[in-house]
């Protein structure tokens, strides 16, 4: 199981808005639980980098983009429904 893929995330946040803060907390917790030592998280604050958000086509905050492994997936929201998030990330087998 050592060749399990590395997960690469990009999380788009809107400053210190409550939703965004929740999403960050939830993502960190999820990664610690299910993807220990095999995840990278990049955080983009759209208030600081609106151009980046426009280029990436991110309009709702918070948005989590799974860049790797493919396919690319977008998850919008606070990531509070763990089961939904895991399913979207293709990690549902881990929970069962």
């Amino acid at each position, binding site marked *: 199981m050592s060749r399990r893929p590395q997960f690469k995330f990009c999380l788009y946040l*809107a400053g210190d808005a409550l*939703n965004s803060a929740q999403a960050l907390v939830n993502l960190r917790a999820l990664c610690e639980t299910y993807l220990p030592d095999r995840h990278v998280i990049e955080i983009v604050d759209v208030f600081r980098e*609106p151009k980046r958000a426009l280029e990436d086509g991110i309009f*709702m905050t918070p948005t989590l983009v799974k860049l790797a492994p493919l396919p690319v997936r*977008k998850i*919008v*929201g606070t990531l509070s429904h763990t089961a939904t998030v895991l399913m979207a990330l293709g990690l549902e087998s881990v929970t069962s």
Partner: protein
Amino acid sequence: MTSQQAPLNNGLAKTPTGISGFDEATSGGLPCGRTTLVVGGAGSGKTVFALQFLAHGAHACKEPGIFVAFEETANRIIANAESFGWELGALTRQKKLFFVDAYPGSDIVNSGNFDLGGMLAVLELQVKTMKARRIVFDALDVVLALLPDLASQRREIYRLHDWLLAHQLTGLLSAKASGDGTRDPGSRIFDVAQFMVDCAVLLNHRAVHGVSQRNLRVLKYRGSGFDENEAPFLIGKQGLEVAVTRAPGRISVKATSERVSSGVERLDTMLGGGYFRGASVLITGFSGTAKTTLSAAFAEAACQRGERTLFVTFDSEHSEVIRNLMSVGIRLDRYMKSGILRMISARTIAGSAETYLVRIKAFANAHQARCIVIDPVSLWSNPGTDMTTQSVADRLIHWSKGDGTTLVCTNLLDELSSQMEGGSHTQISTLADTWIHLSYVVQAGERNRGLSIIKSRGTAHSNQVRELILSDKGVTLADTYTAGGEVLMGTLRWQKESAERIANEVTEVAGKRKRVKLDTDEAELEVRVKSLQKELLAKQFEKALLARTAEGRKEELSHHRTQMKESRGADAVKSGRK
């Protein structure tokens, strides 16, 4: 044409949308720097409305705009709007228009609450970069549907609204909703939104008797008067065209007393000089009563005067109409060639009465027509309900009056439905200024065309039923002959005419004879007068002669006596003594 112009008396600036009819109905357009909500069902024209608003701003008002597309990709929207000729692609390249692809995608996963703060941050940058003045959020319902509850939806709508206000942008939110909130529970949020925004417009698209009808209604408009009624519209070649009955405060054209010829000399006489310029004339009659011919005579007369004329025919192709009219001496082909006459076969226009009206208006404007003939207007009553047809007829007349256009419509009456005069089901007859009724008069086994003027506002007009005669020399009205209280037509008229002619001839001959006789008498008398004069002269001469002779003799006698005395040597005779 900037939005800051034309402040109304209440001080609220308006942003023109460029939608013909809508700007008139709202006296200027959408509220400047405020938010407008456009709601409507699927395919009701929300996106076209929004795009036209932006395109007009970019083209005519120097107001760059941003289009945020939640439902479709920007490329598809640009491609779909290609046919309107707004050059959205070019505007985008000139940075007068910017499309934001905010389409969430089908594979998006929603987990928990989110907000539009990120989007607004992105847009803020874009607004600053291109100095945008107008912004459209198209299909806002798509993104709001991803939010978990009504409270979040409300929160985001308010966020958007506040953001728009803070940036002084003229915003337009469009959303799918039924408008009344009862049928579709998802649209409840837009009932909330309607309270928030300054202006709300409802678009709907429904089929009435199988015919598509689009309607627009301004639900609210803070701080401004507006046309509250539902106004039909259609999506034409240049975008939306809203049919407004009358724009508030529109100056009506002054009525003129100028007359225009009906094309039939005797009809002009009957009308006291012709139709009024700018009047609406209705010609009713059953099929085959020469309605088209009569209206074409008007068109020909208009063309002869050099007035640009539009002839809309619903019955047949215009080439057929022209050919048929040749047989009665009405030659329209030359005016077609010179371009003064435009003929349109409206069979090619499919759709509701509304569509017809808008198209005819467009054609008339393009042709700058001063005279319009619509033959027959009654075909409108087939598609759509009677009510719409009525309102269309109403608007047609209103519009033509407003423009000072002289309008002649024919109206086919159903032969079966009513033989009574003028059972005009579109009720256009009450609106028309002049109403001419053509009928068949059956008399002595013949059918003849009868023409009568049922009404003609403001003009003295003949009350007589006249016979309409079509010949290769044109259209004319026959002389009237009445007998036993009936106007004679056809053969009866002809009989009466010939009887009268014979009677005339007899009288004429008798007169001539009398004259000849009198002439003879006169000549005879003159001769007699002359001979008597001669006789008189002779008598006078004789009388003079007689007098002279008598004197001569007297002289001679006295001379003779003197001689005798001298010869006798007698004493001189004392005069006076015998």
